[in-house]
């Protein structure tokens, strides 16, 4: 397929429908950055900072969280059952129609 549609709801509640390439080895953190949405991605995508914390709002099936992602979420705040790190969601065709909401940023 190559390009899927993904909706990112920003911290003001504004939805952004993005074209997401699935053939460029990109993750959700990088996708948000490429559209200049306010996601820091401080650690560069190593699951080591939680600055790309987001909530999965659609029933899209995602691979299980790795230990590294679980561990990092332990240090994040505003964590809920549907919390994920954007950098650990590697864009794939099966994610077409996915909706995520950016989590609040702690101090």
């Amino acid at each position: 397929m190559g390009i899927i549609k993904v909706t990112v709801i920003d911290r003001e509640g504004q939805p952004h429908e993005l074209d997401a390439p699935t053939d460029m080895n990109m993750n959700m953190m990088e996708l948000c950055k490429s559209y200049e949405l306010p996601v820091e991605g401080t650690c560069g995508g190593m699951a080591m900072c939680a600055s790309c914390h987001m909530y999965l709002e659609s029933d899209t099936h995602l691979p299980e969280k790795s230990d590294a992602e679980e561990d990092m979420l332990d240090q994040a705040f505003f964590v809920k059952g549907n919390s994920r790190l954007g950098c650990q969601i590697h864009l794939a065709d099966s994610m077409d129609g996915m909706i995520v909401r950016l989590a609040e940023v702690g101090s």
Partner: protein
Amino acid sequence: MIETDILIIGAGPCGLFTVFEAGLLKLRCHLIDALPQAGGQCTEIYPKKPIYDIPAYPEILAGDLVENLMKQAEPFKPGFTLGERAETIEKTDDDKFIVTTNRGTQHIAPVIAIAGGLGCFEPRKPPVANLADYEDHGVEYIIKDPNFYKGKNVVISGGGDSALDWTIFLAEGVANHVTLIHRRNSFRGHLDSVQKVMDMAASGKIRLVTDAEVVDITGDGKVEGIVVDHEKEGKISIACDHWVPLFGLSPKLGPISDWGLSITKNAIDVDTFDYSTNVPGIYAIGDINNYPGKLKLILCGFHEATLMVQSAFKRIYPDKNYVLKYTTVNGVEGF
């Protein structure tokens, strides 16, 4: 007062390589870093991660890269002020800068090179509304002296090694009572520490509250208790003298943002001719700077450091001409 030619703020890869390049021009360097060891993110966040885009190293661990950079800088005898955060800067009458750290250590230099990466690493603070009111009045983010907690009732939050280790340490004859609160019922961290905490909880030596988060602090002017929100049981109040949230570190630009430098999106604007900032004599290199086409890569930081020291040389010795020399021809002549 520590005197040097180039005062480098940040002892990450870029700051360390600056020492080498400056040394080739006979300029001395001193580095300040908020972390207790050199290496910046490479050492603090991902020492065991491989890096694949350092020229001529198909693969190198971040920790090894730092070790090599330290070795490369060694002939030029850099000075270090570690574990202290560069706080304030002032200009002297003879065009130098005095930088003072949060512990009052003073440094003077004609050139400042900010190689601060993402900023300085500071404890991550949980989003509890009245948190700031209790900082240093029972809320501490770092345990400096365990004896401070002697005979006290302490609540620790977090699921990592530092939360586990301090829980064990304080529960063994230091604090009067220790409660550990964690968001999940499983812990990361060393297996033996996890087991020890579980054993201590089972024998009643500590209180372990999992699937819970601290949501409120109570007390008149100082911590007298906290309130946790438990997934199943709802709000639970726990009386205590101290709450120590241990959620790791995150980088903040910090006091540098008040140094009068032009800043865009948490990065310092520079001229790519020599990586100078809007303040003559202050340069910014590596991840902390911003210019059209900027890429946050270690290899770009090395390039920036190399060009920056040329400009620093001209600022320090305006009347001297410098000719580029090759290390292959001249070797490395240390101090």
